[in-house]
């Protein structure tokens, strides 16, 4: 087994009284596309900032490509590509200038990868970055990141605000470009539709903690949706095994539960259910139910 691409142990980051990362131990093997999901404030961006060496942890360790994140050298940094949701690039530079600057900075520059990606967008060399549309800037940013031949590519909500064509082009560049063949991709997104299409691996963060790490279909299979007919009140959530979320619709109780098998029907019957039916859930529903459990809600609605 080759060395881990990302390895954190007991990683914590505290801002005032709030833990953005809380004892996070994460190990990511080389290759493939790893999706990272979590509610807003789950600690994704903080994790990226620590991995990139922009922020130092309050406790614990973080390593990228076998190197300690707090001591990355410029040449280590050339091996990590980073694309953020704002697609932050120097606004005043021309496309041609920025490209040749990056080309000088990165020894492993892959001109073919750049052309392959940028070909999907109408970006002219003499245009200034600020003159590009959001989609064009995203495409240009991804082209730059892939051309640097990174071993690790971190994408933080890269398709936010892109139109359908630009989004498809972006995902195609990511999945079918030769440049990503030897690259590990960390893909952070709230769009389950995208994650279902591209992810080999799903990492769920919640309040700075690692909640789940498995292929998406295995994650999905752990969550089931039960519909039962219980007169009056259902059981108290605290007493329900694997409880994630419930809804009452047209007098029927809907429960989303984790890691429950057929025995859960017995539990429902023993709580007065006249009927209990189980069905599988989509990835979108699964992630939603999983994160709903501890998601902030106004106290009066509880």
């Amino acid at each position: 087994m080759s060395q881990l691409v990302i390895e954190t142990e007991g990683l914590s980051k505290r801002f005032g009284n709030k833990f953005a990362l809380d004892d996070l131990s994460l190990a990511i093997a080389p290759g493939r596309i790893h999706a990272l999901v979590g509610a807003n404030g789950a600690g994704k961006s903080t994790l990226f900032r620590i991995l990139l060496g922009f922020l130092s942890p309050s406790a614990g360790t973080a390593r990228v490509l076998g190197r300690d994140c707090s001591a990355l050298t410029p040449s280590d940094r050339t091996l990590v590509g980073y694309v953020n949701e704002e697609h932050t690039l120097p606004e005043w530079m021309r496309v041609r200038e920025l490209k040749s600057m990056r080309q000088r900075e990165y020894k492993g520059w892959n001109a073919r990868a750049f052309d392959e990606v940028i070909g999907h967008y109408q970006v002219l060399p003499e245009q200034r970055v600020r003159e590009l549309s959001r989609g064009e800037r995203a495409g240009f940013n991804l082209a730059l990141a892939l051309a640097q031949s990174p071993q690790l590519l971190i994408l933080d909500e890269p398709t936010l605000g892109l139109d359908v064509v630009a989004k498809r082009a972006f995902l195609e560049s990511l999945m079918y470009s030769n440049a990503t063949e030897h690259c590990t991709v960390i893909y952070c997104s709230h769009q389950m539709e995208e994650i279902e299409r591209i992810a080999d691996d799903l990492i769920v963060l919640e309040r700075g903690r690692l909640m789940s790490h498995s292929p998406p279909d295995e994650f999905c299979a752990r969550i089931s949706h039960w519909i039962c007919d219980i007169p009056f009140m259902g059981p108290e959530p605290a007493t329900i095994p694997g409880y994630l979320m419930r809804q009452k619709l047209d007098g029927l109780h809907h429960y989303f539960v984790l890691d429950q098998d057929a025995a859960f029907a017995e539990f429902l019957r023993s709580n007065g259910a006249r009927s209990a039916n189980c069905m599988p859930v989509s990835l979108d529903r699964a992630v939603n139910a999983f994160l709903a459990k501890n998601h902030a809600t106004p106290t009066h609605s509880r």
Partner: protein
Amino acid sequence: MARTTPLMIDIATGDTRPIVRQITDAVRIKISTGEIEPGDQLPSVRGLAQQLGINPNTVAKAYGELTTEGWLEARQGMGLYVAPRRQRLSRGERERRLDDAVQRFVAEVVPLNVAVDDVHTRIDAEFAALQRRRA
């Protein structure tokens, strides 16, 4: 000239079936109905991934399962082909599934109040059409 037989399938995100499962189900149906036949070449992993807009590893996984189950076969350096038809289920399992299917069918048809002879005629016609497609 393309030797690949087109695979006219699509996948849906937000389905309760994982994408791997959607692909394996669709291919099994196409083979069972004769829409694609033994000896037909399937799209490459990359080609089908691009057609469906999904990760190539997902297609590879689906093809892997279908190959293990004997629906597809790999030819060295040539790609994947629909495997020759052979019995994939045990006799007992076939009996059980046939029984299930007949029970379900009868349960659906009885409330329709159709003459049994008409039902027979319709079934015969459906099977005949299937035979013609396979021939």
